[in-house]
């Protein structure tokens, strides 16, 4: 009852000083709005990185031959021929945490169809490749395990390759093309994926059985990579550990020796990118928090002036029976009301700004619930913290002096 009355008194004081209250709130409004907008931008970019990487296959794990020192000369990883088909078979046989896996051999060359030609890359893989990379087919079908066994000259091509060697809109499936003068029958076209985060055209590829590419194009018997996909995103780090131990055993590495291969999961990539954007977010929020702090000081300033200005009123309230605690609560409630109302308006403005940024600047944004909760809590605390000192000052006034104050 008493608190309700004090609440009414405080509301009344706020309503009587609309302009001043609004100006006081402005600091808080801008502070909260910027915290929310900044966090939304940060979260948005983090999320967009995650989606892009997920589109590349978020469970994906790649194994590459690692750098090695031969006769004291450090070798580039791609030169290494330490990854073999038996490594792949061992992984396939021993690992429990993989849902798909494929050997990968890759080469560059010219794709030719009649008078049209186009430089592209060829990837030799097995049929599980599509599941690992999360790619569908536009038309045609994937080659079979039997075709891998027999090193059949069949290939699937990406949209960029289609555009360049079938410029007149011919249906590619069923056509014969040549890659480095080796004829391939096109049996399917890959779904368009566009560029990845790094600006690589993911549609500029030719996919063929790895046996075919090994024997007929590259004339090698080692593998460039092994690609696999963990049974889930959460298991990916465990799968990395498991694969490492399988490979160490395969390569008969002593405990003292370093790995001669690299196992990487997308999770690492995601966290690398996320931590960069996280740092940026922290920086932005730090700047925004400063404006929130200044907003809080603004409240203290105004409340302090307000106490001075209303000294006589405080004296009167005390004379007619207001206790020190009543006066304290009155001013504290006023400060909290100002900061919380400012907080609500700030949240609304922040959400508005976020929508604006998304719509007109085309930046990815994502409003996290926690950002709203946090900035709101900070507001309430700001109100209490910065309202306390002036309120305390008001409540400690001597009614006699306050009444005589001019």
């Amino acid at each position: 009852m008493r608190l309700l009355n004090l609440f009414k008194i405080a509301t009344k004081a706020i309503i009587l000083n609309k302009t001043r209250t609004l100006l006081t709130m402005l600091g808080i409004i801008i502070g909260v709005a910027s915290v929310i907008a900044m966090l939304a931008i940060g979260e948005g970019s983090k999320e967009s990185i995650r989606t892009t990487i997920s589109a590349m296959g978020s469970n994906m794990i790649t194994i590459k031959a690692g750098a090695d020192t031969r006769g004291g000369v450090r070798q580039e990883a791609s030169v290494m021929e330490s990854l073999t088909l038996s490594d792949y078979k061992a992984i396939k046989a021993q690992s429990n945490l993989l849902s798909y896996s494929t050997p990968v051999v890759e080469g560059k060359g010219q794709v030719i169809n009649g008078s049209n030609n186009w430089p592209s890359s060829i990837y030799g893989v097995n049929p599980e490749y599509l599941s690992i990379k999360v790619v569908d087919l536009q038309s045609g079908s994937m080659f079979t395990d039997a075709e891998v066994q027999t090193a059949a000259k069949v290939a699937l091509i990406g949209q960029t390759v289609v555009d360049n060697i079938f410029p007149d809109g011919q249906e590619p499936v069923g056509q014969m093309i040549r890659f480095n003068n080796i004829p391939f029958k096109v049996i399917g076209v890959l779904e368009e994926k566009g560029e990845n985060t790094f600006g690589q055209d993911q549609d500029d590829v030719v996919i063929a059985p790895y046996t075919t590419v090994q024997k007929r194009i590259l004339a090698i018997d080692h593998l460039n990579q092994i690609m696999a996909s963990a049974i889930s995103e959460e298991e990916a780090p465990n799968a990395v550990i498991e694969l490492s131990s399988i490979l160490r055993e395969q390569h008969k590495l002593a405990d003292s020796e370093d790995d001669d291969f690299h196992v990487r999961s997308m999770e690492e990539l995601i966290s690398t990118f996320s931590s960069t954007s996280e740092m940026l977010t922290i920086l932005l929020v730090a700047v925004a928090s400063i404006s929130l702090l200044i907003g809080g000081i603004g409240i203290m300033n105004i409340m302090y002036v307000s106490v001075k200005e209303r000294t006589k009123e405080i004296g009167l309230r005390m004379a007619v029976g207001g206790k020190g605690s009543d006066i304290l609560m009155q001013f504290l409630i006023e400060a909290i009301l100002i900061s919380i109302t400012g907080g609500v308006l700030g949240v609304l403005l922040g959400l508005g700004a976020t929508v604006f940024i998304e719509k007109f600047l085309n930046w990815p944004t994502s409003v996290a619930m926690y950002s709203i909760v946090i900035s709101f809590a900070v507001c309430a605390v700001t109100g209490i913290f910065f309202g306390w000192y002036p309120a305390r000052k008001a409540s400690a006034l001597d009614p006699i002096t306050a009444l005589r104050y001019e």
Partner: protein
Amino acid sequence: MSKAIIKIEDLKREFTMGTETVHALRGISFDIKEGEFVTIMGSSGSGKSTMLNILGCLDQPTSGTYEIDGVRVKDLSRNELATIRNEKIGFIFQSYNLLARTSAVENVELPLLYNSKVSTEERRKRAIEALEKVGLGERLHHTPAQLSGGQQQRVAIARSLVNNPVMILADEATGNLDTRTSYEIMSLFQELNKQGITITFVTHEPDIATFSSRTIVLKDGAVMKDYKNENIQSAANELAKLPKQDD
């Protein structure tokens, strides 16, 4: 014999100013009985304001006893004093001390806001009754800026009545008003006094004292005179005698 509302015995109040001790009140004793209309007079420096502060429970005596409505005020805490002010005293000030931009009825409600025993409905009802009693029943929602000085002081009087105090304490309540309006206010006080309300009026204007039933004159912190007024003037009659205003 009506009961004593105020009992003061050998009341002393000293202030320490640096190294010097100022004796504002040097042993004052008097009682105020229910239904009395007392004026406390004295020139500046007589201890009048200190007396008022102590009577109003805004200040504590250094020694001696002060009892209001059976409650010994000495050694009460700040909060307990606030409660006594809230329940037993109605204050009226020279400069009205109304809350600006706040309607008359809300100004009158103020003391009841600090009394949690009074509900919102009762608060409004009592405030309206008090305003009707002072003749402002038609101006409940006017703000101080829309009221004349006399009307503002009436609102202040209504505010002092709203908590049914045992005593109204007025501090130079007519000091800011012209003669005509002060007579109007004095006649209102006399009317309230006739209804049984105890009034203590602190002033330095001698003609105000003629409207009261008793006068206590302070000088240098002591009671110089304390006499019953045999010939109480009627403020209403004095008002009638004033020349008519043209406007």
